């Protein structure tokens, strides 16, 4: 299912029958302290997929994750998990949908082994062997008080607890903050392994686009509480192309093409110019734009796949979200 206000839709290759979705939301909104944090979000997670969630700061990613395991209740709309409506006491759902986030509090005074002991009583499907293996793999200090652990070590502990509780869905909120590159790779590898081995589904909110591109098969882009784009990542990458044109000495193209209203009809969703070089992000067939550019005096035209980062930036710019470089004197 594709929900998309970004100019057009991309056909998804994945079947999207409701039975293959472990999580679905229908028009959910969330108002916190009078602020609309999420607005009419439709979102789904296929079984066994890794769904990446990106967006600007304050886009509503954390709120969405909290709605998915019943920490929050939506102000409007429905959340369905394994086809069941999520209402009231969500303790049963939290056995199967596990949220890992940096602001999850620990009991004061707990040591690492106390938390593992506590979790083993809390989670019905607790896997003792798995917990032991994870403690070894992640080199967790069993006798240390948790409050003395570094940010990254706390995150690894949360992941160990999450994976040992054998959830069907793992929700991750910025999980790799504070991890060094070596640990980050191991951390992500553990998640991939679990998905490949057990068919666990993952929703993964991150600001690191390179992680998202490597890990995710589906993505959603959130901006100010709305979904701008949602669907299969590979499909997006093949649906959009970047066309780079070099204009002649008199930059005839600049005058004509820059302010041309017909560009959107040529499939252009974003454009940039730097001196004599103009680049366009195009959805679908690029040949109309190419012939238009040739007519307008382009001396050289190149085409290449679009980087997800550029697509993301184009989406944000279209929404008016930009940050220009500022020289501070």
């Amino acid at each position, binding site marked *: 299912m594709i929900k998309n206000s970004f100019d057009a839709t991309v056909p998804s290759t994945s079947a999207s029958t409701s039975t293959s979705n472990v999580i679905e939301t229908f028009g959910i909104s969330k108002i916190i302290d009078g602020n609309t944090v999420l607005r009419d979000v439709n979102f789904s997670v296929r079984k066994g*997929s*890794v769904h990446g969630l990106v967006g600007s700061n304050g886009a509503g990613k954390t709120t969405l994750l909290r709605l998915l395991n019943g920490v929050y209740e939506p102000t409007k709309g429905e959340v369905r998990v394994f086809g069941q409506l999520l209402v009231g006491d969500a303790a049963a759902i939290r056995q199967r949908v596990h949220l890992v986030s940096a602001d999850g509090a620990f009991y004061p005074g707990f040591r690492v082994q106390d938390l593992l002991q506590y979790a083993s009583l809390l989670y019905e499907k607790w896997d003792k062997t798995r917990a032991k293996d994870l403690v070894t793999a992640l080199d967790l200090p069993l006798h240390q008080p948790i409050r003395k652990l570094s940010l990254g070590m706390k995150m690894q502990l949360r992941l160990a607890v999450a994976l040992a509780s054998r959830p069907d869905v793992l929700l991750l909120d910025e999980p790799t903050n504070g991890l060094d590159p070596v640990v980050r*790779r191991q951390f*992500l*590898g*553990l998640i*991939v*392994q679990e*998905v*490949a*081995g057990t068919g666990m589904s993952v929703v993964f909110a991150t600001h690191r*686009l*390179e*992680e998202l*591109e*490597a*890990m*995710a*098969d589906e993505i959603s882009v959130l901006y100010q509480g709305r979904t701008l784009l949602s669907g299969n990542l*590979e499909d997006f*990458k*093949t649906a959009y192309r*970047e066309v780079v044109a070099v204009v002649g000495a008199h930059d005839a193209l600049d005058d004509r093409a820059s302010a041309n209203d017909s560009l959107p009809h040529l499939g252009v969703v974003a454009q940039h110019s730097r001196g004599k070089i103009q680049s366009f992000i195009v959805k679908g067939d690029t040949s109309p734009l190419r012939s238009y550019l040739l007519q307008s005096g382009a001396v050289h035209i190149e085409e*290449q*796949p*679009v*980087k997800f*980062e550029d697509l993301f930036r184009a989406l944000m710019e279209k929404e008016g979200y930009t940050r220009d470089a500022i020289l501070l004197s």
Partner: protein
Amino acid sequence: MWLDINPRASDPIYLQIIRGVKSAVARGLLLPGEKLSSVRELATELAVNHNTVARAYQELDRDKVIEVIVGRGTFVSLNPKPPNVEERIHELQDSIKTWLIEAHHLGLSANEFLDMVKRVVSEWNDLEEVRNDKK
């Protein structure tokens, strides 16, 4: 690691894996009959979605670069016989034409271009000898 993946590159990751495996086989880093990591192992190692790795393996299998033997694992092909050989030789020929065009614009004559090709091929052959000595 012999397989280097850059998630930020504009090329899809599965293509990078396909190219990496093909290059490793051509360079002799992977030998015919050698066992490859499973999809799950490689995905874990690269921290890349397993569907992406599976897709790359499927295409490599279809191209007969590797062979998937059910229950035993994935191996580098002993008899690599890719499909559509003729068509792909044509494609290869076409891509040589684009190098010629580039050479022309760099001011290289046809002969200078040929010399360059010969040099690259002989360097490749030298490497081959070193590899054969090691076997």
